[in-house]
């Protein structure tokens, strides 16, 4: 490439590339640190260093999980939880994003409605579970509504923040190129807020699973949360652990899915 300069010596090349090499090594090693914890747990449990009644060895939990996968026992629960989270999530996220954009774009609406949301936001979602059960009954609707409320606020505030943080110049551009109110909403405010919207979606996914687990403990006859609670009541600790791992994994996969969607839809934002 560069004809006039001398090639780098091997030693120089080695030094030049060594930070990247170290970086790769660390990245690979970091994958194994959770496994190390599991290993420690396994050993302590096998050696009876921790109470096996409360902390059965990971291998024992894996065995229980396998038998449950084979008997298809867990899949109904997973399906019930996924359906509740999915529907409740959509019911909360869509109005959250729309209202967030609207209040972000219009100062008047923000002044009028902002205080209402600010007053309702701090109410703990689990605290209103009895009220929700009273209004919507013990069926699935009460779960959808509870998740929707939790998701709504996270989406609302993240979207609002996204629009408000967008440089004012984007709004000037919108006006100058002759965008209508709806076009500004759709082509300027929405994409400008999209990175924040995805932050909200990830936070909301996490809190959806917290809410559904708690809701299913108390007011359901199916779902992974119910399964965990029922296992506890029968002192089936291995099964309980399987439930915990499954619901954690569901949350983890949901966030991975949202991140994949984010890379696809927000390619301009640096990850």
């Amino acid at each position: 490439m560069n004809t006039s300069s001398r090639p780098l010596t091997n030693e120089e090349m080695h030094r030049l590339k060594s930070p990247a090499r170290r970086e790769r090594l660390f990245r690979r090693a970091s994958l194994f640190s959770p496994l190390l914890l599991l290993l420690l747990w396994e050993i302590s449990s096998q050696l009876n260093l921790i109470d096996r009644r409360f902390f059965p060895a990971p291998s024992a939990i894996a065995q229980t999980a396998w038998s449950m996968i084979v008997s298809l026992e867990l899949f109904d629960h997973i399906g019930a939880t996924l359906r509740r989270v999915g529907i409740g999530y959509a019911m909360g996220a869509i109005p959250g994003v729309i209202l967030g954009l609207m209040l972000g774009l219009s100062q008047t609406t923000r002044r009028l409605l902002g205080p209402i949301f600010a007053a309702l936001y701090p109410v703990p979602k689990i605290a209103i579970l009895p009220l929700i059960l009273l209004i919507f009954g013990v069926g699935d609707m009460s779960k959808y509504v509870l998740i929707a409320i939790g998701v709504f606020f996270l989406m609302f505030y993240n979207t609002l923040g996204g629009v408000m943080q967008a440089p004012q110049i984007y709004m000037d551009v919108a006006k100058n190129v002759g965008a209508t109110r709806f076009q500004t909403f759709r082509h300027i405010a929405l994409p400008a807020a999209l990175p924040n919207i995805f932050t909200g979606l990830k936070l909301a996914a996490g809190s959806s699973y917290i809410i559904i687990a708690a809701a299913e403990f108390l007011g359901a006859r199916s779902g992974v949360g119910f399964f965990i609670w029922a296992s506890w009541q029968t002192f089936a600790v291995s099964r309980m652990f399987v439930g915990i791992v499954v619901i954690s994994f569901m949350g983890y996969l949901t966030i991975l899915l949202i991140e994949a969607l984010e890379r696809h839809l927000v390619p301009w934002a640096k990850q």
Partner: protein
Amino acid sequence: MTAALQKTPKPKVVCAPPAIEVTTLTKAFYNSDADRVTLAVSDFSFSVARGEFVCIVGPSGCGKTTVLRILADLESKLSGEVKLHTDDAPAMVFQEASVLPWLTVAQNVALPLKLKGTPQAQQKARVEEMLALTGLTSFANARPSQLSGGMRQRVSVARALADDRDILLMDEPFGALDEQTRLVLQQELLRIWEATRKTVVFITHSVDEALTLADRVLVMSPRPGTLVADLKVPFERPRDVVEMRRDKRFWDLTYEVWNLLASPGGA
């Protein structure tokens, strides 16, 4: 003062109405916390003929950007009159990065057309034409984050030209660029202007830039900004931004404008 400085004759050519007529424009800002009124622009009057390239120079804070934003209807005036004798609203090239980061270069340029509902095929043809005009053809599918500051301002110019409006307002578009890129873009802008003959109002704090580009330079006083002088720039077109600098008149004019800027009131 000297021969090189020619005041524009007061009654301009009257055959066609000017594209822009501004009369005793006044703008003030009110800070309610401190109960303080800041007069930004005071009784500013000027007009721009159709197809004319006018530069407004003035010290920072003199309200020149405010004047431009009022012309673009991005800000409201306090009093005075602004008349635009055109069919469409003016297009604006902004000072800072105004290129939308979520769109590619081509999509940014197509934006005004897309929002207007121009048919796809027509959009595509027009965008290609604009990209060619601004030297961006090979960057059509690039994202703004992959471009240099100069390239991004080219995109801004291409977008402003895309839907072919009569008036082009430019708010220090090259202000943040380095000297060399600036010179290149000034030359490009001159070429584009000669090809399109838009009515241009160009804001700058650089005397050099104003003389390089304009048919006429309006000099503003420090805040509250008002017209200090209205100077005709005598260089023939097409202009060469480098060659111009060998012209003695260029330096005489530079000296004149600096004198005006240094002594507010214009006397």
